[in-house]
């Protein structure tokens, strides 16, 4: 970069790239510093076995058309492999239930009717809450007009749901997934499948209160397709397009550039120090790293108030989801399933999920593991050699801090996961050429995210909106002038949607 940057972004994950692209588009000189040899963070597509590629994040339920259009991502190579992947609640006996957007296939009549009412209500809620994912949260007591306006709009949106639905939302918002499902449905298999998105990614299970409805609504905020969208080239295809879009706008993305710390001078963030000792100055530093890394490692407690530091250190950041990648020599057969081209949910009932959670709560893990499985090579032949396949699975629950350490448990957990798959696809073991298990500990080590947590900090009501990551830093600016957050630890949270990066860019641009 010939000129000194106006803004340095620490971390080239998807939010860092989105933030960079918007800032560059507005004419700012932006420098993105990424520690890895590849941009995209947990969204990047990597080769895990010769010829086999996968990305940790494997579907794009939260991505919106506006972002794709704003940054002209399609002209930078972003295409979807599918925009309508259904979810399939797998049954060992082959009586599967398919959830394709607002239609159910294979469920009882009463459950099918209930699902129509359920999905209509949820879509109504999702629509009301949607604008707020893409807006800076308000600050209570700031006395500012904008904050009052955002709060007012939020109140108005809820009110326009109508009195009954508003009261329903207020009643349901903190319900455990189990209570929500029990209210609507009777089939245990369906209930488990529909509860899955309410908890995955957080240290929560069907019986945990605090965020089920919120998480479900959050995952309904994308609009790329009726079913689950999947990017061509894996989620890394989207990451490459984001990096290309940012670069095309004039941003520079430097790889293999780990940042050791933020330089603070007279209380003002003014540059970064790289791991190799190089200093780069800029008047604004934006971190897409998680809040603990951003504040406690990069910035340092000596620049922060005591109670604020404590709130950051108390953020719940232990990840509980492991990622499993299997290289398969051919397509395995799943009982009673013609073609495994959906998102397969291996969760017979909610108690099954809860039991796996119980083991993880105390630092262990279950023998039978609930998981969501996708075989992206069915829609995208760039991910595996011809005729061969990649299986990508999110496996719960894998405690970040397993008792005895992951070195001692890695192989057992992997074996449990494969054994759990075998209940549905009995011959799968014979197809496996190579495997990769990324426990939360591995994710932490390889992707530099504290606890290996998807959302950088638990996504839950107490940690939401004006409390994300905590008050005092919930509007993308932080207590240290010149230092900003743009990662999943900021509002609205994790998941590939770029809202945190977008909102942060807007907050920074509006400051000037």
């Amino acid at each position, binding site marked *: 970069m010939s000129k000194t940057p106006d803004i340095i972004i620490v971390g080239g994950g998807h939010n860092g790239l989105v933030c960079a692209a918007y800032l560059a588009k507005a004419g700012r000189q932006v420098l993105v510093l990424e520690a890895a040899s590849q941009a995209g963070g947990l969204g990047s597509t990597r080769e895990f076995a010769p010829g086999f590629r996968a990305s940790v994040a494997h579907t794009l339920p939260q991505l919106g058309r506006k972002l794709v259009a704003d940054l002209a991502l399609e002209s930078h190579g972003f295409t979807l492999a599918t925009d309508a992947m259904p979810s399939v609640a797998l049954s060992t006996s082959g009586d599967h239930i398919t959830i394709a957007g607002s239609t159910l296939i294979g469920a009882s009549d009463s459950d099918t009717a209930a699902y129509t009412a359920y999905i209509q209500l949820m879509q109504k809620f999702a629509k009301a809450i949607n604008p707020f994912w893409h807006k800076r949260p308000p600050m209570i007591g700031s006395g500012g007009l904008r904050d009052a306006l955002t709060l007012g709009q939020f109140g108005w949106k809820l009110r326009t749901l109508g009195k009954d639905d508003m009261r329903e939302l207020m009643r349901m918002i903190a319900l455990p997934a189990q209570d929500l499902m029990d209210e609507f449905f009777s089939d245990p298999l369906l209930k488990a499948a529909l509860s899955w998105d309410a908890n995955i990614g957080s240290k929560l299970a069907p019986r945990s209160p605090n965020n089920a409805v919120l998480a479900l609504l959050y995952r309904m905020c994308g609009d790329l397709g009726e079913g689950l969208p999947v990017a061509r080239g894996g989620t890394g295809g989207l990451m490459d397009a984001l990096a290309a879009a940012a670069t095309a706008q004039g941003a520079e993305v430097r790889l293999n550039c780990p940042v050791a710390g933020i330089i*603070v*001078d007279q209380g003002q963030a003014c540059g970064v120090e790289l791991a190799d000792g190089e200093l780069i100055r800029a008047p604004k530093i934006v971190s897409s790293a998680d809040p603990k890394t951003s504040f406690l490692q990069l910035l340092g407690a*000596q620049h922060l108030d005591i109670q604020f530091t404590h709130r950051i*250190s108390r953020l719940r950041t232990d990840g509980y989801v492991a990622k499993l990648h299997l290289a398969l020599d051919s397509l395995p057969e799943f009982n009673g399933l013609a073609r495994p081209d959906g998102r397969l949910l291996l969760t017979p009932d909610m108690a099954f999920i809860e039991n796996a959670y119980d083991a993880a709560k105390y630092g262990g893990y279950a023998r039978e593991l609930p998981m969501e499985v996708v075989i992206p090579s069915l829609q995208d032949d760039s991910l595996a050699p011809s005729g061969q396949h990649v299986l990508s699975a999110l496996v719960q629950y894998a405690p970040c801090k397993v008792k005895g350490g992951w070195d001692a448990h890695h192989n057992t957990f992997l074996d449990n996961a494969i054994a759990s798959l075998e209940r549905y696809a009995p011959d799968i073991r014979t197809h496996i050429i190579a495997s990769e298990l990324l426990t939360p500990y591995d994710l932490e080590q390889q992707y530099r995210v504290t606890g290996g947590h998807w959302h950088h900090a638990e996504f839950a009501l107490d940690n939401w909106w004006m409390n994300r990551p905590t008050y*005092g830093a919930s509007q993308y600016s932080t207590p240290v002038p010149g230092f900003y957050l743009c990662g999943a630890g900021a509002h609205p949270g994790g998941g590939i949607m770029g809202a945190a990066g977008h909102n942060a860019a807007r907050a920074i641009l509006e400051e000037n």
Partner: protein
Amino acid sequence: MPLKATLQPADAIDHVHLGILPSPFHSRTSRLNRNQLWGEWNGYASATYYADSHLEYFSTRNTCGVFDVSPMRKYRFSGTDAAAMLNRMVTRDVLAQAIDTVAYNVWCTDDGKVVDDGTIFRFSEDEFMLCCADPCFDWFCLSAVGFDAVDITDISADVAALSLQGPTSCALLKAMGFSGIEQCKPFQIMRFPFGSGDIMISRTGYTGDLGYEMWLAPEDAELLWDQLFDRGKIYGIQPMGDESLEMARIEAGFLAPDVDFHGSLHTVELNHDHSPLELGLGWILNFKKPFFSGRAALLAQKESGNYRRLLKLDIEGNKPADNSILYADKKCAKEIGYVTSAMWSPVVKANIGYGLVEAKYFEGPIWAEIYHQKELRWQRRVARCTRVTKPFWSPERAKATPPPDC
């Protein structure tokens, strides 16, 4: 019948249990505490007075008095991050504090409200002792979050401490063999061999007069007490209790926790806590320091000027203004604050006190509504108050090195 009663020494009565802990000096203080009148300070017995609180008070102004400060909470901070951690916690520049000196400090919440105050002793690059009146370990642990190389240890029970205050204090210490003590400057630390090891003497105190505090191993406590009182007879030494210390500290302009201010962590109501600016501690806020906890909030408050003031007041008449409400007018129509501490000062010969006054009114007229009793009948008087900017009592000898007559 002969009118004669023999009083047993208090420590000879073994069936009376105080229910509070003995300090390392208790075998000596209990012998002198004529009425066995004890207050409780951090779980330890602290004499209310020994014989006569006025006599004890006058010892700090005319001869010297000894106050047992062992119940103070003492914390050791060590490690390569200790200086940085303390520097971020307190309002003064710890990094610039010289080795073997003491500095009075406050530490604040994020909102710039006082958690507590105390003194930091710097022993080396990486080793400190912090003394405060009340336990504060939880706050220190909270303040250490994000600093790896700092160890915080509560050493309260491992250190016995005595305060020797008054014009003859230096001469007495010199006579006890602590030669060179006269060269010890205010807030400086010196060490001498004593008893089983060392004694540390700091020129610090809570009376505003010439004085020293002595820090040593608990097993040497009695030896120190005995030597002080053996040698101290001709220097007019007196033991001091809480009541006399309270008088001395008001004259000196020092604040008492839970009297003049509440620690922020102990208040429930909004604004029942205080910022250092409100308490008149603006002089220890080092805004040249790039950061300390609460800095941004305090800087904003300072720039606004809109904050209450704890004022030193010279109150007309001779009736102490304890518990008085303050008004902007003699008719007591506009209430503007209240008195936190008050007394008739024997050395200054003035009716003095501290009053917390609303921001809008601190420069205008201030009247105190005083209630006092005359033969059980309550009387009311409204007294004009005058602001005083210097400490009420601040003799030259407290600052001179060497002190006079040494």
